């Protein structure tokens, strides 16, 4: 009933403070307990905590991911519902900057990529493509270019085994393990046009 009393009734009839007293007289002063209970329940209850590292700058702040719906047996990690600084971390000690504090909205960004897409030459639109079709096509493009342009020996006859008509830009936030796998694949193909985001 309390919430049903609108402003006009207070102000238009007897005056605000007056009405307040009136409500009290009507036996609402027991409202205290109810109000305390109306504090929003702590929203991290029942979440799964996972240790992670902020992907932005190089401070390497520890973060804790809070997820719901994790199912170990099914190999499901669930959905991220919140993220905070890791208080045990010696560098950030639980703090996070304005980007780190808002990482949930990076993970949940509307503009996340969710399915492989292709844009054909001259087209003005994206079309969905299956992973298999995309990877087969890319491997074919790679091989055709490599076969046509691979340099096994230079003009002096020295073995150089390089492929410089296709290049690879590596990331800046992938893991070391990803980087190592990437290095192996790129170098074994003989690619030299290879760089990362160290400079920009």
């Amino acid at each position, binding site marked *: 009933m309390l919430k049903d009393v609108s402003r006009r009734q207070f102000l238009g009839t007897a005056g605000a403070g007056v009405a307040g007293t009136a409500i009290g007289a009507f036996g609402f002063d027991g409202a205290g307990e109810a109000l305390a209970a109306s504090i929003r329940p702590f929203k991290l209850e029942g979440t799964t905590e*996972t*240790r*992670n590292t902020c992907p*932005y700058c*190089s*401070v*390497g702040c520890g973060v804790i*991911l809070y997820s719901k719906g994790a199912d170990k047996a099914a190999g499901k990690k669930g*959905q991220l519902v919140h993220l905070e600084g890791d208080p045990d971390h010696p*560098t950030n000690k639980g*703090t996070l*900057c304005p980007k780190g504090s*808002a990482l949930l909205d990076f*993970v949940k*960004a*509307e*503009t996340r*990529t969710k399915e492989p*897409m*292709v*844009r054909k*030459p*001259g087209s003005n639109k*994206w079309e969905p493509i299956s*992973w298999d079709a995309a*990877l087969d*096509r*890319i*491997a074919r*493009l*790679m091989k055709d*270019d490599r076969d046509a342009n*691979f340099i096994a020996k*230079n003009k*002096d006859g020295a073995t150089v*085994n390089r492929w*410089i*008509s*296709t290049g*690879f830009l*590596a990331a800046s*936030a*992938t*893991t*070391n*393990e*990803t980087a*190592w796998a*990437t290095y*192996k694949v790129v*170098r074994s*193909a*003989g*690619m030299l*046009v290879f*760089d*990362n*985001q160290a*400079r*920009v």
Partner: protein
Amino acid sequence: MTNSWQDIKNTDLVLIMGGNAAEAHPCGFKWVTEAKANRGAKLIVVDPRYTRSASVADYYAPIRQGTDIAFLLGVINYLIKNDKVQWEYTKNYTNAAFIVKEGFGYSDGLFSGYDESKRDYDRSSWDYEYDEQGFAKVDTTLENPRCVWNLLKAHVAQYTPEMVERICGTPKDAFLKVAQMISETSAPDKVMTSMYALGWTQHSKGSQNIRCMAMLQLILGNMGMMGGGMNALRGHSNIQGLTDLGLMSNLIPGYLTLPNERESDIDTYMKTRGFKELRPNQVSFWRNYRKFFVSFQKAMWGDNARADNQWGYDFLPKMDVPSYDVLRAFEMMHQGKMNGYFCQGFNPLMSFPNKNKIKAALGKLKFLVVMDPLKTETARFWENHGEFNQSDPAKVQTEVFELPTTCFAEDEGSLTNSSRWLQWHWAGADAPGQAKTDVWIMSQLYKRLKALYEKEGGAYPDAIKALTWNYKDPNEPSPEELAREFNGYVVADVPDPADPSKMLLTKGKQMVAFAALRDDGTTACGNWIYCGSFTEAGNMMARRDNKDPSGLGVHQNWAFAWPANRRILYNRASADVSGKAWDPKRSPIAWDGTKWSGPDIPDIAPTAKPETVMPFIMTNEGVGRLFVHKLMKDGPFPVHYEPFESPVPNLVASKVRGNPAARVFKGDMEQFGDAKEFPFAATTYRLTEHFHYWSKHNAVNAVMQPELFVEISEQLAELRGIKKGDWVRVDSNRGYIKAKAVVTKRIKPLICDGKPVHVVGIPIHWGFMGATKKGFGANVLSPFVGDANIETPEFKAFLVDIKPTTPPTDAPATS
């Protein structure tokens, strides 16, 4: 960083110059506020703008962008003139006493050996005098006029406070105040830390900016000290790791280099990489190069790397140019010399200089593959977004793939932060839609390419076939498997020569430390500096013991720091020649009579006696270099060169435009603008509310800084009739952007050689994708030229004009 983030709490003075840590690394900057609050440390900020770092500084001094070397050489000159030198350190731990050979010289901005037609030097005269045994000659009295110290003294003499003011626009009293504060840390028990970032690297003389500060820190005796060091604040969460792992055109993991095409065999390759000691009794750690290289080859090619095929030497591609860095890549692409390009978590359309050139270059590719968790502009370079990205898709023949990837929350593995810590993380969310890990994608591409070569044959399939890929699931190796591989493992038993019944190394075990790596094929190690990160004791990167018994922020059992879990590089230099700590209250290691002990891992053999081996074992001199023999492309000492686009002439080298040894491609020189048409000095930078071109996709960060703006002084606003919040158009010789105007007192005209220079500040974060208002990329404006040594683009200093304008127009919405 030579030190670590929390080590900053141990400092007496923080110099933030060439960076803006409060803005770009807020949680690391915390340690500056700790040092201030708990040690009474002081903070100096030197920057063209009064930044967020400056807002909490004890002293702020303005400087014109691109003039840091003049400022720092001015400080060195001040130290020498006022005898504020850590003499014992400088004499023993630097090459001050080394004698430079006859024939070396410098005049009018150029060192001996310059060839203008090549824009390059013959560096043979930049060297020491050697004795009969091949050791460098020294004069410990520092009297020889050709000893490094005297050459340095002469070199810096022209950078007087008056000259600094004329070049940098820093008022003389402000410069003197900063120099005086810095000079106090020449006391053996006082330290300064240098925190810098892209404000120093993104110049055509970026490497020399940093070198100049390193020289200063050596003279002050601040290297290797707790609370000291050269602290490069890396820009991205794992750019340290990707560089450590050699994902650059000319690198092999652990800062080894690929062979060039003149090095036809492994012995020729090793000739220039042996790094023989230049002084008696020194340790040149690069003596172990061959062990690291052979172990790397074993990790790559397994049994296919054998003694009889030079450990698979031919499997590696050979370089014909110094580097295929991104500027060269896009130059080649622009010339139509490239057909395919992959972007893994990278958005070059926005990130690289001269966006219009980048866009044109991408349009000349046959195929472009973008793997990213976000919908990037690069994948959409062909889309028409009106003034934000003009395009006619029908004319763009590039086939573009956009492959969805996981992000940090959905994958597992390690990232290497600026403190050189490899920190493991775990997945806490499922990948959205069909997104896959990059490891899965790379594995699939490899699998398919290999299958095609097996089926069809083709150009040199040998290396592709020879690559090791022995994983439980070849479709997606696990992070642990990959980590174990770069840590290294024993390939074959190595018996103990003293007792053949015992094994030094046992086949199949994880390597414990790089010191045990071998060049006989018995050990494999993907990255020698990461050796020790995943041992038989387990995953050291996943360690989470945050105890810090010394209270000095060492945290020895938290994660793993390369190399060898060492937290402060060059820590041997924190003690005097006899091994006694310069400051016992904050000492990483000291000689206890029998060995080096302390909270950190010694950067020297633990039993190497003091007064023999000098601290800088990664140089073949054993000491820090005030003079660099041959290794820098653009000079053994730094020189003040103006940016390629500068509003003023060079006062110390009037005939030289830009860095004389910087590479400039044909066509790009013509695209440099001059001050008559583009009178104002522009610089680009980050804001704390955003991260690069990612966080604009974030609905919360988009609120914090919703729209592209540029910052100008009240004086420039008045000059151009611009009011706060107006739309302005900023032009360089390469294009234009439109942005909102922030008119601020935090930027003031700098008086350089008597004339005002107006600064235009341009934050980088906007584009035509994401949650913010659409915006132009700052790099429409920036010039296509890089640092002479490592080709970092000159984003920090170029010329523009600015005037009021109308709002930009987007492309009409398509239904």
